[in-house]
Each structure stands twice: as C-alpha cells, then as structure tokens.
C-alpha cells in the first residue's frame, strides 16, 4: 500500500514519542518504509545493501527525532536522511562512482524522442499477473540513469508530489519535472514496442481472433 502522509497524526505522534511513548514510533515510520527502501534501492542498486541502509536510516530518524522541526513534511525529512545514508555508503564504497553520479546533469543533451507508433492498444493492469511483464518494467526502470530513476520512484511509484520530491532529493521543482519527463520518454521508448505483445488480442472475447 502507498500510504499518504497525515501531518496531524504525525505531529501528534512525534510529540508523544518525545514525551516517552516510544512505541508510537512504529506507527509513525510505517508510511515511510516503502519510499525509504525504494529510494535506497535506486541509489545503491543492491537489495541487501538497501535493506540494511533502510534499517540504519530508520534508527537515525528515531535517534534524531527531536531535531525534526516540522518545517517540511515528516516523510520529506525522513527521505533526506535516507538519501544521505545512501550517498554516504556510495562514497565509502567507491569514490570514483560519486564523480560519475555528478557527471550527469540536467543541461546535458540526450535523445528523448519517444517510440513512434501509429496506434496503441491498451495493456490492462490485469496483464501484470504475468510475472514476465512486471520483471520487464522493473528492468526498464533499473536501466535508467540514477538521476531519472530516483525521480520516477518517488513521483510515479511512491506518488509523491513535485514539491515533496524536490525537497527529498535536494533539487529544484523544475529539475523534478524535467527529469520525470525525460524518464517517462525513455521508458516509453524502451517499453512501448515490447509491451504490444501484452495487449489483449482483438476480438478474442468473441472468438474472432486470427
């Protein structure tokens, strides 16, 4: 489930946790678990490492809860801690990798022309029952450059708005929009031609398929 944050519940929770009701932290963090994990997965690209980093992030959030000022949403703050955790691990693992991360900027050109099609038959969500399709989608997102992957994960998969995504990633709202546009164009180009095979055959329901 993609849980939408509830600022009043969070503010109340945080007050009570800091006053000693520690157990409430379990409830507070629940809506952040998915975005924390998937952001770290996007940065670290390794399931075990992302899970360990997610646990470490949550412990840091717990230990530093008194530092949360309520100027941003709690989830935004939590995600910026996750991002620092992920980037810190990358830096430790390989300093050269960091350079390559910085190398890709929004000014850089690139070909974001979509796959040109003359017709499109919708692939229904029901087709996701086929494991092969879900795998293909994951692989396509995994293959995006990191700056685009992070934005797709937070905006489209975790359904965060432009403002929150920008704050969580430490970039401008304009950059979020540009990156999301480019990411979707790259995904349409790589996926649309291959997805055609998952559309229901015309007339199949009526036994007219050829």
């Amino acid at each position, binding site marked *: 489930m993609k849980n939408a944050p509830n600022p009043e519940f969070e503010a109340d929770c945080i007050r009570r946790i800091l006053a000693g009701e520690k157990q409430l932290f379990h409830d507070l963090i629940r809506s952040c678990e998915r975005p924390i994990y998937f952001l770290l997965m996007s940065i670290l690209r390794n399931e075990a490492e992302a899970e360990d980093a997610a646990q470490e992030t949550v*412990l840091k959030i717990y230990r530093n809860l008194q530092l949360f000022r309520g100027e941003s949403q709690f989830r935004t703050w939590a995600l910026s801690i996750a991002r620092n955790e992920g980037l810190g691990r990358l830096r430790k693992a390989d300093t050269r990798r960091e350079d390559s991360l910085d190398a890709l900027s929004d000014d850089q050109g690139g070909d974001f022309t979509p796959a040109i099609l003359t017709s*499109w038959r919708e692939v229904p969500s029901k087709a996701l029952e086929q494991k092969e399709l879900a795998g293909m989608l994951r692989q396509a997102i995994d293959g995006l450059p990191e700056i685009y992957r992070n934005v797709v994960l937070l905006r489209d998969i975790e359904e965060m708005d432009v403002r929150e995504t920008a704050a969580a990633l430490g970039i401008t709202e304009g950059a979020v929009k540009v990156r999301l546009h480019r990411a979707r164009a790259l995904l349409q180009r790589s996926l649309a031609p291959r997805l055609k095979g998952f559309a229901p055959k015309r007339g199949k329901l009526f036994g007219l398929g050829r």
Partner: protein
Amino acid sequence: MRIDCKHVWEHISAYIDGEVGVELRAEIDAHLETCEICSAVLDSTRNVVVLYADGRVFELPAGFSERLHERLEKEMEMSGP
C-alpha cells in the same frame, strides 16, 4: 499557430499530470485529434506509467517490515525508558 509533433512530445509528461495551461492544452488537444502518431505516443506513455506504478511491480522484499521493526524494538530497549 498550430503546434507540431515535437512540441507535443515536449509537453507529454506535463499533459499527463494536468500541468499544462488552458491554452496549451487546447492546442495539444486539437493536434491529437488529427495526429495518430501523437495520440499513440500519449496513450502508450500513459499506459506505461500506469503499469509500472502498479503496486505489484515494486514490492518490498518479503519480511522487510518485520525485520525493520524488530531492529527498531532492540534499539528502543537499549535506549532505556
């Protein structure tokens, strides 16, 4: 002035998110009515987004939440009342 296909592609993402202004939206809509290619590009882009955003595509690893809360519980015990 009528907008061309390239111009439409530049705004597809914003169009999907409902973030284009009234005037531009009307221009894009008029273009889509007569352009098969842009209609197919728009429909396929929207379809691709709906599919990968489905909760079944990106799932937390099995037991992720349980392991996380166990570790948290240990931390809470250590940090005292």
